Every structure is written in structure tokens, then in C-alpha cells.
């Protein structure tokens, strides 16, 4: 979901209007926090990063240039830099893909009662999270920005400080790796087929 925020609202918020800031915050908080959370896999750290990203906008609103992209892209870029700093500090290698191939049970069975299915859905979500987590940070960020936030290649390139070609390459590798992971843990023929056809 792409966030569209009116410019006058941004101007009001940057000049200290609490209502305007609240409105912007509630529109963007889930996306920024979600991105930080998927990247760090740590809720508290994601909160810190989200807060810091908003604080950059509050304290130095002149840093945000509407010509360069949306406010969401700006905040996401700030959050992304902080995420990478955190990952570097924690010793995570940014380039390599270190996913392990695990054999998961078939979870998407349709012949189950509702509570049990809910439980399995939760487990399924955890498995997907685990698959995404196993991607390298650079692959993970482009995949999240594309699939969850629906950003264009150009916007992703702006946030990740790269170019469209690199974004495309990373996205391709990320999808392929994820398809491979997913093929191991679910029955989805479609995903499996993607893996087969691409390889």
C-alpha cells in the first residue's frame, strides 16, 4: 500500500502542528515499524528505529525533500540506514544469503477444523517469517518494499541508495530464494513451479 500524504499536512507537521503529525504518524507507523521489524526480527529494536526515523523528520524536517520522493520513502530510507547500522553492529553479513533448507510439514491442508487451522495459520506465518528472515538483508529489504509496501523500482532504488538495475537483480534473487524456501514448507504448486521454471 503506497502512502499518499498531502503536502500541506507535511508542512503543518514539520512546523510543529501536533494534529498533523499524529495523522501522518498513524498513517505510516505500521509500515515503518513493519519494515524495521522484518529486517531486524526484533520488536523493541524496530520500535526504537521507528521512533528515531520519526524524530529525524520532527527535528530536521528540511532533510525531507518532496521532489526526491514521498515522505514514506524518506522515513523508510532513514529506518533502513538505522537497520543496516544495527545489523552491522550485531555482526550480520549483509550480502550473503544464509538460509538453511529445512523440511517443513505440509501446513496448508484444507480438511481441518477452524481452531486447528488457525493454529496452523499462525505456524504458517511463522514459517514464512522464517523464510523471509533467512534472506540476506539486501534481498529482504527490496522484497519487503516491493511485496508489502508496493513501492516502484525507482522508489526502492531511492530508499536503498542504489539503482533500478540493482533493485531488479536483488528482487529476482530474493523471489527465487523465497520460492525455494516456500517450496520446502508448503504444498503450493504455483510456488514450486516458479522455482522449477526459474532454475
Amino acid at each position, binding site marked *: 500500500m503506497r502512502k499518499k500524504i498531502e503536502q500541506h499536512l507535511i508542512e503543518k507537521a514539520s512546523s*510543529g502542528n*501536533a494534529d498533523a*503529525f*499524529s495523522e501522518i*504518524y498513524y498513517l505510516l*507507523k*505500521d*509500515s*515503518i*515499524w*513493519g519494515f524495521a*521489524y*522484518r529486517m531486524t526480527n526484533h*520488536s523493541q529494536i524496530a*520500535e526504537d528505529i*521507528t*521512533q528515531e526515523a*520519526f*524524530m529525524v523528520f*520532527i*527535528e530536521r524536517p528540511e532533510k525531507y525533500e518532496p521532489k526526491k520522493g514521498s515522505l514514506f520513502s524518506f522515513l523508510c530510507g532513514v529506518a533502513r540506514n538505522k537497520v543496516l547500522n544495527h545489523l552491522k553492529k550485531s555482526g550480520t553479513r549483509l550480502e550473503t544469503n544464509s538460509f538453511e533448507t529445512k523440511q517443513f510439514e505440509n501446513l496448508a491442508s484444507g480438511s481441518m477444523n477452524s481452531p486447528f487451522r488457525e493454529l496452523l495459520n499462525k505456524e*504458517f*506465518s511463522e*514459517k*514464512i*517469517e522464517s523464510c*523471509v528472515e533467512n534472506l540476506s538483508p539486501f534481498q529482504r529489504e527490496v*522484497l519487503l518494499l*516491493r*511485496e*508489502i509496501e508496493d513501492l*516502484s*523500482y525507482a522508489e526502492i532504488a531511492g530508499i536503498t541508495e542504489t539503482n533500478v538495475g540493482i533493485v*531488479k537483480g536483488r*528482487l*529476482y534473487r530474493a*523471489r527465487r530464494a*523465497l*520460492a525455494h524456501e*516456500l517450496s520446502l514448507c508448503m504444498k*503450493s504448486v*504455483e*510456488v*514450486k*513451479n*516458479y*522455482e522449477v*521454471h*526459474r532454475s
Partner: protein
Amino acid sequence: MKCIEVRGNLEAFVDGEIGSSEKERITLHLGDCDSCRINLKALLAIGRTMKQALPVVAPMSLDARVLKAFDNHQTKKQFTKLREKQEKVGWFGIPKLAFAFGLLLLALFSGLAFQIGKISASNVQVSNSLILKTDQKESSFKHNGLNKNDYAKQVETKIVEVPIIKEKIVKVPVIKEKIVTRTIYVAKNQRRILRNQRKFSEKESLALMNSVKDGEFLTQTNLKDFQPISVIKPKISKKEE
């Protein structure tokens, strides 16, 4: 369009990052090619799966943190603005630079005044001397029908040394011309000597007649060891009268 070409552009097609003509060609190909269609479905399934499996709702605690940080920042900003404004205005509503300049001028003026005072004091104070000062009681000030200001215009003040006895020198301010009376003081322990030398004392008094200040307008300080021995009306005063 061949499958290999479509596969190369399929992701861009799904992501909407492809031109309209290319899009049409791929769409046509997908209608005929099962393999590419399956591939397309797989790609779409990845996105769909991710969106379904990764719902994102930020925790409630984040709201309180960020909004509080915003409030704190605004408070700090207002305080900083106020302080900057105060710094611009300076102290007591005077700009700082002007205030400092004023202080400097005041200090210079004070120093100058102190130096002048010191010089004046050194002119008046003489060791073992008697200091007489002009009495400026407005109510009692009347001389020949003149008020104080008119009188001050007519007279000129100067300091003269009046030897009363050998050991003592009295410094008195003298007003020329408008002399009415004068008082001669002598040290208590020298009174007898002065009486014995009355002739000398009178002569001395007459010699001083034109230069002794009108006693009416004099007060004496530091006179505890002195007593008045006579009040003499000068000759000029007599002539005037």
C-alpha cells in the same frame, strides 16, 4: 514473443514496471503459453503469500513513545526560541551590546570622576590644616537680597592658606568682595599666646581681611581642637554698609 523473452520480463510485468507495448505482447503470449502462465501464477503467489502471512501492526507502546517524543521536542523548541529571543533583547530590555557599551562608559566615567576627586582632595587636604567648607543651606542663604544662584554668579571661590598661629595653617575658601564677617580660630592650647600677642593677631586679621570668607556661610570641620577667638567685620563690608 518467445518464452525466454517473457521470463526475462515477467517480474517487471507483475510489478507494473513495463511499457504498454511490451505489456500487450506479454499478455498475448501468456494467453497461449501454459508454462509462462504457471510461472506468472507462482510469482503472484509469492506476493500474496507474503502479504497474508506477514500482517503488520505496530505495538501500542510505540504510539506513546513517538507522540511523547514529539511533545518533548516541541517544548524544547519553544524554550530555545524564547531563550534566543531573550538573548536578542538583552538585559533590562536593552540589547546586550548596547548594555555592555553603557557599562564600559560608566566604568570609564567612574574612573575619571574618582581621579578628579582624588586630585581635588589632595588640593584641599593639607597636614595639620583646618578644612572649612561652604554651607549650602538654601533656607539661610540670603546675601544683600540676592538668591543663591545670583550670588554664585557674582562671586568667585578660591582656596587660600590662612596662618593663624605658626604651627597651624587653615585653608579656607574665599569669596571676593562680598565679605561681611570672618571668624578667626585658634588652637585651644595656643589661646593664651595669641592674647599676649594681640597686636600681632589683629594685624594678622586685618591683613587677612580681604581674603577671609564670610563666616555666615562657613562651617568648620575637624575643629574640636580649635575655638573662635574673634569675629571681625572687614573694612570693605563696613564701607559697603
